[in-house]
């Protein structure tokens, strides 16, 4: 019996077991009834959110640090550390009014100086995404009435989407100014403004957050303690969700095959919101430099040969939906008005015939290597499916396995033919989509750049024009054209709009209230009954 089927058995046995599920020693509600037990996996490297943009850090640290704004499910900004904001008519000046009643967790008042320090000193040094956006500012200044003004050198459409806790966490100047940020001892004891403070971090075991008693909104937060448990084994995580040891988790915490069963349990609710901000598209990464793959007819044929609905239903167990193009339906400016590739082997074979790629006696037209991304079962199955699917149109795919470091190295150094990848879209094509397709971003050795090497001046021009205007009609129009052009060229084989539903115990309420989902600050979360 292999490990996976054993996990199934293990989890199944629990489900079938008539025993009371009190096998774990933990009385779940310990110090009061307003406790949330949840999961973080893997263990974060640090909780200093300004230094680390990895997912586990964001999950936990988003309760400790806050941005100027947060986003509702339609990606509209809502007040957070900024109570109000305005944009000048020419789209060049963004003025935020900063709350004057906020204290850092060490009792020091938060001021506009902290905001300026974060924007001009800290983030430009440490966060590549913020660096790119803040680099568009000609000046960042504070004025007496508690406002901060960002003056841009040129209009930048998605600027307001760059101020949540992941892109713009406001950091305490009084602890970091004039120090070496990465070796600052305060990194171990994060001090933020958020509704929760770090109480204890037992490495390898759990992270304990407690209610910030001096939070600037009276009565909030409603939860007294959050425990992030570090559980490295997927079967153990499924068990913990099932028996109520933890009351909150996300789809990525368990194997996809387990998710449906857990979501159907009477004590758990599936929440299908809160990933609008990340909204990635999973694609077959096609190295456009490789012979035959450089021909768009080959890429179109691949799009026709892969049954995306089959992939969603059988490999992703229904978590996600079929992708049709480069922009996620949840991201702004998604358009349906473009070429669509139905699952059609006849059309695929026709395209390859037109290329003059004829099959030999073994039925093989050509061969490619596909690097299996080392990110678990789903990618292994997806790779196997791809080999079978492409074999039907005479393409022989050889699967190559590697580890995370090997994958990162091969992809960023263009040393691959086919593999899979995805990137977060951050709500706006200018923030999360353009980087994958524009010629300027073909940078060897850098991940999440235009690694496929696709280059089309028409696409470049439209991305550039759409980015530098705040006129919504114009942006909509330009991004529609971009989607049409890309759908013709198929630089990448778009497969799945990935979804990250959460699993929440029925005893919890208002946990997910923003487009960043479990990475929200849990200010409104409640434990009922």
């Amino acid at each position, binding site marked *: 019996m292999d490990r996976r089927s054993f996990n199934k058995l293990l989890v199944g046995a629990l489900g079938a077991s008539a025993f009371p599920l009190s096998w774990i020693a933990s009385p779940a509600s310990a110090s009061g009834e307003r406790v949330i037990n949840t999961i973080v996996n893997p263990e974060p490297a640090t909780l200093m959110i300004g230094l680390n943009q990895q997912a586990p850090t964001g999950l936990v640290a988003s309760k400790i640090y806050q941005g100027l704004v947060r986003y509702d499910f339609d990606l509209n900004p809502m007040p957070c550390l900024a109570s109000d904001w305005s944009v000048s008519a020419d789209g060049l000046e963004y003025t935020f009014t900063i709350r004057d009643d906020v204290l850092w967790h060490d009792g020091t008042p938060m001021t506009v100086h902290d905001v300026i320090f974060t924007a001009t000193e800290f983030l430009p040094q440490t966060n*590549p995404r913020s660096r790119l956006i803040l680099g568009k500012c000609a000046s960042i200044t504070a004025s007496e009435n508690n406002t901060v003004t960002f003056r841009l050198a040129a209009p930048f459409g998605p600027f307001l989407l760059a101020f949540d806790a992941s892109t713009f966490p406001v950091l305490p100047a009084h602890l970091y100014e004039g120090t070496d940020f990465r070796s600052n001892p305060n990194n171990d004891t994060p001090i933020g403004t958020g509704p929760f403070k770090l109480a204890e971090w037992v490495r390898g075991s759990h992270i304990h957050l407690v209610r910030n008693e001096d939070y600037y909104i009276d009565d909030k937060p409603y939860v007294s303690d959050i425990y992030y448990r570090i559980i490295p084994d997927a079967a153990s995580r499924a068990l913990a969700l099932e028996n109520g040891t933890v009351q909150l988790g996300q789809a990525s915490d368990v194997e996809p095959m387990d998710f449906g069963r857990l979501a159907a349990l009477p004590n758990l609710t599936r929440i299908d919101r809160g990933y609008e901000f990340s909204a990635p598209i999973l694609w077959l990464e096609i190295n456009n430099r490789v012979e035959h793959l450089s021909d768009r007819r080959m890429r179109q044929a691949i799009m026709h040969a892969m049954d995306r609905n089959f992939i969603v239903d059988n490999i992703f167990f229904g978590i996600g939906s079929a992708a049709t193009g480069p922009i996620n339906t949840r991201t702004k400016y998604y358009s349906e008005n473009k070429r669509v590739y139905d699952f059609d082997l006849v059309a695929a074979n026709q395209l390859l015939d037109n290329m003059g790629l004829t099959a030999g006696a073994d039925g093989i037209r050509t061969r490619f290597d596909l690097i299996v991304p080392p990110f678990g079962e789903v990618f292994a199955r997806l790779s196997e499916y791809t080999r079978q699917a492409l074999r039907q149109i005479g393409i022989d795919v050889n699967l190559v396995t590697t580890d995370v470091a090997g994958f990162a190295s091969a992809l960023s150094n263009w040393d691959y033919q086919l593999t899979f990848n995805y990137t977060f879209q951050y709500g706006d094509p200018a923030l999360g989509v353009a980087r994958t397709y524009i010629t300027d971003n073909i940078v060897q050795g850098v991940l999440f750049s235009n690694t496929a090497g696709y280059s089309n001046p028409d696409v470049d021009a439209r991305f550039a024009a759409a980015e530098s205007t705040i006129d919504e009609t114009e942006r909509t129009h330009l991004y529609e054209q971009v989607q049409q052009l890309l759908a013709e060229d198929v630089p990448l084989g778009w497969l799945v709009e990935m979804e990250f539903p959460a699993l929440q115990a029925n005893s919890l309420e208002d946990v997910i209230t923003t487009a960043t989902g479990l990475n929200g600050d849990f200010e409104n979360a409640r434990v009922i009954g």
Partner: protein
Amino acid sequence: MKATLSIALRWLVKAILFVFVLASLNFLLIQLVPGDPALVFAGSSGAADQQMINQIRAEFHLDRPVWAQYIDYILRTARFDLGTSFQHGRPVWDMIAERLGATLLLTGSAWGLSIAVGVALGLVSMRYVGRWPDMLVSSLALFLYAAPSFWLGLIFVLVFSIWLGWLPAFGVGTIGVEHSMLGAVLDKLRHLILPALTLATFYIAIYARLMRGGLLAVAQLDHIKTARAKGVPQIRIVTHHMIRGAILPVVTYLGFHATTLISGAVLVETVFAWPGLGRLTFDAILQRNYPLLMGILLVTSVLVILLNALTDLLLRAVDPRTGVSA
């Protein structure tokens, strides 16, 4: 006294030499692994640019020639400076120190458990040699020897945590509960039983077999026959004359197994969410976290050398003849 001192000195010189060779080998091995820590770090951040990658390369000294990195590493090691983990922004030594206790507790318990149970099973086997208890112990030993430990771990969870509900399935203690002193110890013990047992099974099997063979061989020796002829009670013959002779190979193997117990803990630590060095090592390898990895390798090398020294001392205590000229 003087002889002891000189032996200790000689041992120390040898140990330092070993550590130096091991440190060099560790460095070399890591250089041979493909992959770039800067890319892994950037990769899991979901965003990257050239400046970030350059920063990380500089931090790891990857922008310098390999020989310079090597000399630098050896010099730092000589000063007991293990460096800083870039990803964590914390000193490597701190990260190892906070995990060391958990690993030593787990491997130490497994070590003790395996020798106690192994020796006991060996005795049973010897006592009933060729009869059904011997067969039973032999079959059990063969099964434990053959079964992969992580699989046994999952079976234990299934039986003791899920079906019987006696023991917690994972973790190192109950989270979010205030315990009294005694309560905390008991709680820890409850969490320790399954992982320690899982880790010990393989060694229980080996020691049971070694002990059985050793006892049967010793039983044929002249001094046992003499003792028996003198009318020494059977129990005394076993405890005073036989165990001492039979346990030598077990103690020798204990020294060997110090290494595998520490490295073999990775899977068990993962299955039981036990916050030890094994998992830290595994993560460090995946992230290509060179300073952390080299720090762990060094610390475990030193641990193994120390445990081997301990075994030597044990051997000498059991059989003074082995201590004449080490």
